[in-house]
């Protein structure tokens, strides 16, 4: 099932991180901060529904650098923190911000209706795109990126249930190549630095 691709992704990540660690001492061009995929791997494509209710296909963002994040809006801490750091990093880019697209995919379509996403996602950055779909559609998209998630009932909380989830930011370049996974807690400045590297690569290469 999905665990096969999860395993592959974790392996990719570990290898990339190990390689990245060795390469970083070489000096020269600044390096990306996260677990790099070397060589890069084409980001899996998916089609979901955006926060306006229109179909949205990931490959339609070619030409832009994409920060892709999977979370849920009832999450009060990890998700808004990451959304905030991504939006802050984008804001720090000035005019180059137009080359960057932030995408939030909900793992909780049950609570995250289109109306909820419509309010939540643009609150961090007006250009943000929020995506939802059927549980099956979301599972397929998440599995393609190796996102691990599980609904967890919380008996003693008014929240009812939480979503345990891996919290990487998936960084995709202009050509649709998945370049790195930024772990939870990556500072806004590091995200901005990595975006600058990818922006400066231009559309060629």
């Amino acid at each position, binding site marked *: 099932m999905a665990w096969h691709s999860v395993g592959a992704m*974790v392996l990719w990540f570990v290898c990339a991180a190990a390689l990245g660690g060795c390469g970083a001492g070489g000096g020269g061009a600044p390096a990306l901060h996260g677990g790099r995929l070397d060589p890069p791997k084409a980001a899996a494509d998916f089609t979901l529904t955006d926060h306006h209710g229109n179909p949205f296909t990931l490959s339609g963002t070619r030409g832009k650098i994409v920060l892709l994040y999977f979370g*849920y*809006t*009832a*999450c*009060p*801490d*990890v998700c*808004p*923190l990451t*959304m*905030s750091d991504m*939006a*802050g990093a984008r*804001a720090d880019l000035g005019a180059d911000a137009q080359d960057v697209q932030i995408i939030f995919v909900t793992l*909780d379509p049950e*609570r*995250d*209706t289109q*109306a*909820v996403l419509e*309010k*939540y996602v643009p*609150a*961090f*950055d007006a250009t943000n795109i929020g995506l939802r779909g059927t549980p099956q559609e979301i599972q397929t998209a998440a599995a393609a990126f190796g996102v*691990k*998630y*599980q609904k*967890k009932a*919380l008996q*003693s*909380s*008014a*929240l*009812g249930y*939480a979503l*345990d*989830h*891996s*919290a990487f930011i998936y960084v995709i370049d202009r050509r649709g190549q998945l370049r790195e996974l930024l772990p*939870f*807690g990556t500072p806004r400045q590091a995200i901005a630095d990595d975006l600058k590297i990818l922006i400066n690569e231009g559309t060629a290469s």
Partner: protein
Amino acid sequence: MKRKLILFGVLGILIATSLSACGGTPAPTGLRITDVWARASAMSTDAMEMGGKNSAVYMKINNDGAADKLVQATSTVAASTELHTVEMKDGVMQMRPVEGGIDVPARGAVELKPGGLHVMLIGLHQDLKPGDTFNLKLTFEKAGVMEIPVPVRALVQ
């Protein structure tokens, strides 16, 4: 004989100090709450179900006195106010209610900060706008109830 007296004397002092440590008279509360803030939220619309109507409060609880415990937080801005924490397990972030309260170490501090311990506001009755302030009541096991003002910070600084 002299030695025995000294021994009794030492014992006496030890017993006296241990008794006073156990209390009788409550220790003066040495709690100071600093670095308090809540994350903005514009999600309180009636149309919303549970999604997104939540936020979190962060703070540093400094303690100059004996060990204490934050056992409860309450506010009027949300339907429920709970103590939560986040832990990374096998690469997965897990948020859970804190069972039994948050320990405040003696002559130390505990920090409620993003990616860890926080006061969770569940089902906001009102939007939390940057610059707004609301009150939060904190109940400590020993120090009792403290009411603090919580300033709201923008989603993106």
